[in-house]
């Protein structure tokens, strides 16, 4: 073997990665668990194109995501882009093709999305999202379904510890309307609330003259409005208008339904969440796990998006980043075993072996063939090196010499009861 380092000759572009063996198996298993979960709620899977016209994908996404899109040209010079999320293509499909179907529509997807963003924990430029959208249904029942399904999804992918925090854009929007500040001050206030910067908020309020004490108190209390459903009652004290009251009553209705869904202890409420204020129109939520400073799942109500593509339709949904869930599971000590073969079978110059392997596979056994013609001892060593717990070779067409950690012996090859007894030992 040459000791030349080959990897230096073929670097990968920044932001993409290979998933090998156990990781690929973990992704596959998580996807299967997610599919089983949303099928249980009546969601139907769609598969969407990886790239579309850039104009379509840039619809209503906001400047940040717009700047992060991978754009390129087709042969006619039209600008295409790789999808930066799955919600926009889903909204496009609904608005242009599914708008007259019986409502509500329940849609689900899994796929890669692409963003030029600084690589963060568990997110490269290409990462995998799985998500659901509930379309054509407004109101607390639909909102609560989406949150409860997000809890179910994180449980299904095997994450022991996580929390989903639910907020509502109406609360902060109502507060901004009541404050009626100049645009620049509003922008600063929003940044400070987004960073939970309590001191900065106090400083900012000091600069604003003539603000009523009630409004001042509302702003200062905002970063503390986080916790279980009791904060919704506490928040009533600082409501300045009906928009804020409406947001609270929406959330209280959702909170009640989440108790009925049996997921209340997984959910907290956060009224100072102001992320994606322009995109969402009702509740918003994010899922977090210990030790990972990034959300695993993110979602909310977006009743205005589909109207950009067709008739307006109410919609609520979420997307989960599988790469981050994998990381969060590792942080919580959950590892994923790659499925391994049951038997390594010597197959050189042995038609009987191939017949036996075919029969064994038909019975659900995983049989790997050794094409090298290894001698029995070498065969057993090769099996161990690959993590296969058993090796076997035919001594004659009717007799199989099997080897495992307990030693070697001969069994009748076609006696499937004996074979099963050996395997289950």
């Amino acid at each position: 073997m040459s000791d030349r380092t080959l990897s230096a000759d073929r670097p990968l572009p920044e932001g993409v990665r290979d998933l090998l063996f156990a990781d690929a198996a973990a992704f596959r298993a998580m996807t299967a668990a997610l599919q089983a979960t949303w099928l249980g709620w009546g969601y139907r899977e769609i598969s969407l194109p990886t790239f579309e016209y850039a104009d379509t994908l840039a619809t209503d996404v906001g400047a940040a995501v717009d700047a992060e899109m991978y754009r390129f040209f087709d042969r006619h010079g039209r600008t295409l882009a790789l999808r930066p999320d799955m919600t926009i293509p889903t909204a496009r499909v609904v608005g242009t093709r599914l708008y007259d179907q019986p409502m509500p529509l329940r849609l689900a997807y899994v796929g890669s999305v692409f963003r030029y963003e600084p690589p963060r924990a568990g997110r490269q430029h290409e990462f995998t999202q799985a998500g659901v959208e509930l379309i054509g249904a407004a109101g607390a029942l639909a909102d609560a379904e989406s949150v409860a399904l997000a809890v179910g999804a994180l449980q299904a992918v095997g994450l022991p510890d996580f929390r989903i925090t639910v907020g509502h854009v109406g609360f902060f929007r109502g507060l901004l309307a009541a404050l009626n500040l100049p645009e620049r001050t509003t922008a600063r206030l929003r940044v400070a609330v987004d960073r939970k910067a309590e001191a900065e908020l106090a400083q900012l309020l000091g600069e604003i003259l003539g603000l009523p004490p009630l409004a001042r108190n509302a702003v200062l209390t905002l970063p503390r409005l986080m916790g279980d459903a009791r904060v919704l009652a506490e928040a009533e004290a600082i409501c300045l208008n009906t928009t804020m009251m409406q947001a609270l009553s929406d959330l209280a209705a959702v909170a009640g339904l989440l108790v009925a869904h049996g997921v209340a202890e997984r959910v907290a409420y956060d009224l100072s969440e102001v992320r994606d204020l322009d995109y969402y129109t009702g509740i918003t939520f994010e899922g977090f796990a210990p030790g990972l400073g990034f959300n695993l799942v993110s979602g909310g109500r977006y009743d205005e998006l589909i109207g950009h593509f067709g008739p307006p339709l109410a919609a609520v949904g979420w997307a989960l980043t599988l790469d981050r869930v994998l990381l969060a599971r590792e942080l919580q000590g959950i590892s994923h075993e790659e499925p391994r073969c049951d038997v390594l079978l010597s197959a050189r110059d042995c038609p009987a072996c191939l017949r036996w392997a075919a029969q064994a596979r038909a019975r659900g056994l995983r049989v790997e063939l050794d094409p090298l013609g290894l001698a029995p001892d070498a065969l057993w060593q090769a099996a161990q090196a690959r993590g296969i717990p058993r090796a076997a070779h035919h001594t004659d067409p009717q007799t199989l010499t099997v080897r495992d950690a307990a030693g070697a012996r001969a069994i009748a090859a076609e006696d499937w009861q004996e074979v099963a007894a050996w395997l289950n030992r």
Partner: protein
Amino acid sequence: MAEPLTVALPKGRLIEDALGFLARAGYAVPANGDGGRKLVLDGADGRLRYIMVKPADVPVFVEYGAADVGIAGLDVIREAERDVYEPLLLPFGRCRLVVAGRGDRPDLPLRLERSPRVATKFPRLTEAFFRKRGVAAELIVMAGSVELAPLVGLADLIVDLVQTGVTLRENGLVELRTILESQAMLIANRASYRLRAGVVRELIDGLAGVVRGT
């Protein structure tokens, strides 16, 4: 007893004040602070675990959740541009990030510079400052002794931290503009802020109480 909350502290000029504030807020702090070689230290009361890191790394430890909270200067926090919460300003470590140039520099507004070479340890903030003014600055990123650059003709201007201004004056440099007024800040990991809300809130309120008392 629950796991202690992990606090990332910046080795160097902020450490004494940071430990002092935590002690006054009622937390057990390591006796020899920065002096030892150990990088992970447990508070005697089991409430906090301290990790000692380079100042510029504090936001990274906190963003990734290797630390639940951290204390760092606003200068490194704004330069790092990490996704963390910023619940509390602390009244120490005050300094200014300034644009400075040689005393004999022609009296010319910065926006009329053609494409000045600017030496700095803060490339992101420097780039943003000049770009906002429409000036295409050429950044020279350095690891230390930034004041030297204009003296030997490496750069036209510098962007650097100033506490008293003595170092600048001794090197014949004058402050032209303040980019940022910096002081220490408590930052928190976005997941810890939610998942460990009780103990994080206790720390914020405890430190806020000390701040009010100063």
